[in-house]
């Protein structure tokens, strides 16, 4: 079974630039998550999709972050414009159907904003 795929693995941008991350979840998984993880901290949920609908985006900074999940499969997370404090690892995870099931994580994208 193929795991969760993410790209790119690393990205360095200057503040005020824009950046996009891509995630392909495990086939058949209805729920897709985007997390932000700052060094030394636990993952912080940014947005949760159930199929192609948003379940929770309460912690997504909507003035600069946006996410979509087209056709309930792949997803993209965008930051525009980036700030220094956005430097973090962005993790994508998927699960069969919500928080009652284990989550499978991708390798993450390490973003550095200079």
């Amino acid at each position, binding site marked *: 079974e193929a795991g969760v795929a993410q790209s790119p693995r690393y990205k360095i941008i200057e503040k005020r630039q824009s950046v996009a991350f891509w995630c392909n979840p495990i086939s058949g998984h209805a729920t897709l998550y985007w997390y932000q993880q700052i060094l030394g*901290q636990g993952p912080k949920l940014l947005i949760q999709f159930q199929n192609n609908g948003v*379940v929770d985006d309460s912690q997504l900074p909507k003035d600069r972050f946006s996410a979509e999940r087209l056709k309930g499969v792949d997803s993209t997370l965008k930051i525009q414009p980036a700030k220094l404090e956005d430097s973090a690892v962005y993790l994508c995870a998927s699960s069969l159907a919500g928080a009652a099931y284990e989550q499978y994580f991708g390798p993450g994208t390490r973003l550095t904003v200079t």
Partner: protein
Amino acid sequence: SQQGEEDPQALSIQEGENATMNCSYKTSINNLQWYRQNSGRGLVHLILIRSNEREKHSGRLRVTLDTSKKSSSLLITASRAADTASYFCATDDVSNYQLIWGAGTKLIIKP
């Protein structure tokens, strides 16, 4: 917001010893999950325990859950160097079905 709190924040033991980590949470939950994160394999699911379960085993892992105290513990027996990682608990809040994560325990196994 993060409701799970792992204790201790860091733990260093000799290879072969047992490691115990604790997680406390604040709200009523459906289940509690433990994950491991190391640089080589990223975040990996270890075990899920439901609110009506008190103990669960998986290989060298033993998880207990006490819903009256809103706490869980993860025991790793006969530790190995490969167990060096950060361990996180995540709780599934009954009110919003959101998985909420703690800050993690950093475990170092000394050879």
